[in-house]
C-alpha cells in the first residue's frame, strides 16, 4: 500500500521534463539541458528519479555543473532522491539540439550548428560544414578565424558584411 501511495504521489516524467526545461547550460544560459539534447531518459526506479544524460564533449567542464543544476532544480520541487547516470553511446550530436534551442542560440548572437553532425567518414580538410550565416546581420559572407572559440564546442568567425566577430556552435 505504502509503495502504491508513493507511486501515485510522485510527479510524472512529463512533469519532470517540464522542470528540467528550467535548467540552463552554465556556459550558454539561453539553452536548457533539454534544448541541448543531452537528457536521454527520465524514469522512476522505485522512489529514485533517474536522469540519464549523454555528455557533450569528453572534456566539457560544464557537465559537472549541469548535473548539479539538475539536482538543484528537482530538489526545489521536492524530488530529493535523484540518480544521474551517464550514457556514452550513441555519442551526443548537435542533431539532437531542439529547433527552439537553435533559435535561442541565434538570438543570443551564436550561429547555430548546420543541420548535419560532423562527417567522420573521411579526413578531407575542406569537407567541413559550409560557413555559417552571420547571426547578427544574416549575411552568408563569413570567414573562419579560429577553429576553437571560447569553448571546445564553438569556433570563431567574422562577418565580412557587418564586420562583427561571432561564435559558431559547431556541428558535432
Amino acid at each position, binding site marked *: 500500500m505504502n509503495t502504491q501511495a508513493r507511486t501515485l504521489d510522485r510527479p510524472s516524467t512529463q512533469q519532470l521534463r517540464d522542470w528540467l526545461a528550467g535548467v540552463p547550460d552554465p556556459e550558454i544560459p539561453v539553452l536548457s539541458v533539454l534544448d541541448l539534447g543531452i537528457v536521454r531518459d527520465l524514469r522512476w526506479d522505485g522512489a529514485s528519479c533517474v536522469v540519464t544524460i549523454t555528455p557533450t564533449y569528453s572534456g566539457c567542464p560544464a557537465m559537472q555543473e549541469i548535473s548539479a543544476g539538475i539536482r538543484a532544480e528537482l530538489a526545489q520541487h521536492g524530488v530529493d532522491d535523484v540518480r544521474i547516470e551517464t550514457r*556514452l553511446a550513441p*555519442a551526443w550530436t548537435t542533431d539532437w539540439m531542439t529547433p527552439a534551442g537553435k533559435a535561442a542560440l541565434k538570438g543570443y548572437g551564436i550561429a547555430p550548428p548546420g543541420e548535419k553532425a560532423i562527417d567522420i567518414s573521411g*579526413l578531407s580538410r575542406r569537407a567541413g560544414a559550409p560557413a555559417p550565416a552571420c547571426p547578427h546581420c544574416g549575411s552568408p559572407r563569413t570567414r573562419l578565424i*579560429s577553429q*576553437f572559440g*571560447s569553448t*571546445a564546442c564553438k569556433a570563431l568567425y567574422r562577418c565580412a558584411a557587418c564586420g562583427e566577430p561571432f561564435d559558431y556552435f559547431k556541428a558535432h
Partner: protein
Amino acid sequence: MDRSLFQYALRMGDTTLILSQRLAQWCGHGPALEEDLALTNLSLDLLGQARLWLTLAGEVEGAGRDEDRLAYLRDAPDYRNYLLAERPNGHYGDTIARQFLFDVWHYFLLQGLSGSADERVAAIAAKSLKEVTYHARRSADLVVRLGDGTELSHGRMQAALDEIWFYVGELFVDDDVVADLAGRGIAVSHEALWPAWHEHVAAVLQEATLRLPDAADARHPAYQGGPSGRHTEALGYILAEMQHLQRTYPGASW
C-alpha cells in the same frame, strides 16, 4: 581480469593524458590567442578521453583503482603511453608536427575501435572519434600553412617533422596485447592502420610542400618502448609536475 584489455585501456588513457598535459603546457604561451585557445581546447578533449579510458582500465582491473589513482599514483615505468605523446613541445612547429602525425593515427585507430566487440571500448571510441576528426583536420591545416608558408617556417616545419618521425613507428606495432585483442575483435591491428595513415600524411605533406620522411626511419627499435614502460627522460618531468600536488597532499580535493 582481462590483462590485455587492462593494458590497452591504460595505453590509450596514458597516451591521451600525457599528450593532454603536454598541450596544456602551451596555456598562456601560444603564438597567438586563437592558437592558445585551440591547443588548450584540444588538451581538454584529450583529458576527457583519458578519463574515460582510465576509468575503463580501473574497472577491468577490478582492484579499486579509479582514474585519479591511476593518473596520479603511478610512476614512469608503470606508464604505458606511446613515446610520441611525451616528446617535448619544442617550438610551435614541433608541437604541430607531433600533433598532426598523432591525430591522423588516432583518427584511423578510433574508426576501427568504434566497431569493437567490447561495447565500452566502442562507445569511448565513437565518442572520441568526433572530436579527433576535428583535431586531425585542424592540424593538417596548420601543417600546410607552416610548410607552404615562408622559407623560415618551411625549413622549421621540415626539421620538426624529420625529428618526430622516428617516434611514429611504435604506434603501428602489433605486440602481444594488440594481437590478442585484435584476435578477439576488441581492438584492431595497428600495423594494418599504416597504409591509410601513410597515404593521408603523404597527401597533406605534398600540399604543404614538405618532404615525406622515409618509412624505414619510423621503424627503428631504439625509438620504441612506451607501451612496455620504457620511456624517454621527458616523462619523469611531466609526471613530477602533474603529480606533485596529489603526492604531497594525498587525497587533496577542492
